């Protein structure tokens, strides 16, 4: 396939861009949507784009959603494009999620977990019935919601810390011990993706992968194209304080916090020959409040580990299949490029088809001629 430069259409292209803005503003009775509205009222959309963009920039994630008129793939693309223009100024020390300021923490595997279970904000137990009154929501009623909820917050008693459920399992010998980690994690933004990849690369790729893609592949594993029947050991959502050294004193300072979701799933137990059988776990984590993504990622982490050990027996266990087909910008970009002019390519396809059809007809005529 050859690429040939096309010319013309400049005016149409400019108008196409203007049209998007016209669609955005159509009607003369609207107000422009604000970043804060996007971040709060479209919370899960915002979180998805934060995560798929691979860069924790809430203000720009809102802008991306606004500019792309709500297209999650385009919005994530804006964030990735922006990040490619920014200098890399370093990396943080290793953070652990024990320090997360939680707003949600549950376990499906265990009823009693240290610190307790708190549902936090979740639609899990809701019936999916429309609240039709929201079609006609008044600003006054809307603005009362927050203050009403916040009335009488005093005296909320919750534990100060929430140890990881997984550590409790480990303490009981149900999980293998952690090996001290001496490698450098793989930087997928700077190193080429060459298989076999270390697990840190798989985690980095999945954490910014497109949610639907991860979900579909994880679902295939759950439904039998794979061997992972998971239970959620812990799912937590909260704000991780980011700590960096003070430029003068070198003491740790909190520079901000990052909303994130983290999930561990327990799968069938492993019994390596000769070794004490232990539970196999998968891990998923991402920026933003994205539970389906974190759970899917944990399932895929587990199935990829299994695939690496025993050889893949299903697509969800094959790292090349999972990791090369789950990045939204890559997959959407390739799909979208099909719309770009391919006139020369297609012209040659047309020519080839016509030639082949002609030969076919000649053959048919010849065969009929023999019969007569």
């Amino acid at each position, binding site marked *: 396939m050859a690429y040939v430069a096309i010319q013309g259409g400049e005016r149409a292209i400019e108008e196409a861009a203007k049209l998007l803005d016209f669609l955005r503003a159509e009607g003369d009775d609207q107000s422009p949507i604000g970043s804060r509205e996007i971040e709060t009222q479209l919370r899960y959309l915002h979180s998805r784009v934060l995560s798929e963009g691979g860069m924790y920039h809430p203000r720009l994630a809102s802008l991306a959603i606004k500019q792309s008129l709500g297209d999650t793939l385009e919005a994530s693309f804006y964030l990735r494009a922006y990040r490619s223009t920014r200098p890399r100024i370093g990396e943080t020390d290793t953070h652990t*999620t024990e320090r997360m*300021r939680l707003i949600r923490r549950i376990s499906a595997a265990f009823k009693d977990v240290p610190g307790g*279970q708190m*549902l936090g904000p979740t639609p899990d137990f809701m019936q999916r019935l429309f609240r039709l009154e929201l079609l006609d929501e008044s600003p006054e009623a809307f603005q009362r919601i927050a203050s009403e909820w916040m009335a009488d917050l005093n005296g909320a008693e919750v534990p100060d810390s929430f140890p990881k459920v*997984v550590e409790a399992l480990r303490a009981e010998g149900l999980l293998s011990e952690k090996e001290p980690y001496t490698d450098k*994690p793989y930087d997928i933004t700077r190193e080429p993706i060459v298989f076999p990849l270390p697990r840190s690369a798989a985690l980095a790729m999945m954490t910014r992968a497109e949610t639907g893609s991860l979900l579909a592949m994880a679902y295939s594993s759950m439904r039998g194209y794979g061997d992972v029947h998971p239970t959620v050991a812990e799912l937590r959502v909260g704000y991780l304080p980011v700590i*960096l050294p003070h*430029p003068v004193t070198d003491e740790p300072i909190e520079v901000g916090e990052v909303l994130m979701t983290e999930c561990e799933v327990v799968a069938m137990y492993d019994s390596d020959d000769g070794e004490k059988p232990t539970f196999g776990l998968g891990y998923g984590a991402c920026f933003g409040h994205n539970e389906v993504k974190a759970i899917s990622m944990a399932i895929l982490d587990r199935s990829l580990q299994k695939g690496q050990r025993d050889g893949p027996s299903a697509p969800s266990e094959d790292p090349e299949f999972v990791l090369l087909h789950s990045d939204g910008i890559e997959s959407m970009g390739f799909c979208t490029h099909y719309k770009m002019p391919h006139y020369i390519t297609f012209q040659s396809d047309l020519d080839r088809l016509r030639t082949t059809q002609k030969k076919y007809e000649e053959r048919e005529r010849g065969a009929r001629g023999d019969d007569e």
Partner: protein
Amino acid sequence: MTDVPRTQWVAALATQLPEVRPLVDSLTEGWQVRHVAVPKAGLMLLRMEEVVLGEDYYLGEVPVACSRVEIELPDGMTAQGGAQVLDDDEESAVGFAVCDAILSAGLPGAEKVAALVDRGAEELARRDQVRRGMLARTQVDFSLLSDKDPDGEGTA
């Protein structure tokens, strides 16, 4: 001047961002301020340890700005300050660094910086209170259907 530890000054001041620049502009009038390191804004990789196998990975990139400044007063007194903030805005990092210098060295005007830090800390405390409320109000203690109903209402 403030009970808020230095480790929390940036987090506190970040909640009061619109006040920071006007305050440092007014306090540093007539002072010499110079960059000890070139202020920079960009992205850092956020390194995490995952808890299952204890392996490190990068969760993604976070925007960071850093600044390190030195202030010299007309009487010759000097003080250094620094800040890193989770936002790719050099201007705010410089503002925080100047506040850090003024407050840590007790320069003239430090009590105003301390007051701003305290207001920020109150904002952070309110935020924590909301989060604790979220957890407290949604605490669950699931029990199996076969167990006695804890609300004493009897099973269906």
